[in-house]
């Protein structure tokens, strides 16, 4: 699983009306762990950066829907 996601298992009641989702995930993008940006982080090329939305590789965290991941997407 993407390291920028965390997962937890909510309580499943025997009386839940819908088929239970056993594992729930949430997004934890890299900036949450960065503090003040350190010097000399690795950079994208300018052309790559314009596409990625950031110059800095350690901040890049593309998000894909379950739909896209199931289709083999997520390799951006």
């Amino acid at each position, binding site marked *: 699983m993407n390291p920028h996601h965390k997962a937890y298992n909510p309580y499943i009641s025997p009386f839940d009306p819908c088929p239970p989702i056993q594992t729930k995930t949430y997004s934890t993008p890299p900036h949450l762990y960065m*503090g*003040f*940006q350190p010097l000399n982080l690795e950079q994208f090329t300018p052309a790559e950066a314009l596409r990625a*939305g950031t110059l800095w590789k350690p*901040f890049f965290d593309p998000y*894909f829907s379950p*739909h*896209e991941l199931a289709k083999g*997407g997520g390799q951006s």
Partner: protein
Amino acid sequence: MWVYEKKLQYPVRVSGCNPMLAKFLIEQYGGADGELAAALRYLNQRYTIPGKVIGLLNDIGTEELAHLEMIATMVYKLTKDATPDQMKAAGLGEHYADHDKALFYHNAAGEPWSAKYIQAKGDPIADLYEDIAAEEKARATYQWIINMSDDPDLNDGLRFLREREIIHSQRFREAVEILKDERDRKVIF
């Protein structure tokens, strides 16, 4: 004063006419955590924040206007060729009755934009913490819209906008650190 460049910050492509996606996307146009609220919040807070972070609010507030323009383009492209019946089927009948295909500043549930969505507390830390929260909420909104969208071209643009929310949050967090250091320095001298 602003200098306008007649192009979008990131190219907006849409795979098909899909008014229902437009209905969801309008949340980022006129919703509480949308781009309009973000731009107006930051550009207004700039006047009463320490000089070291005025420029940050200025730059990010300006970029939010560029994002607003991208969202507007997405919504327009998703709806411009829809028939009234398609609008109605997508849950946009009420919108069509009031606005035809025109865009309007309301959220996905049709609630008009309100200044109650934003605050300017005059306390730099309180304002920056609100700004960090706003960026994380906008990031989450993009995730939920991507989860509901089956349009790969649209998702590409939405992923770019979500990445920008991450960077903005990072810069606001650094602004808080800068202001904390300022306080320490006064104590030392």
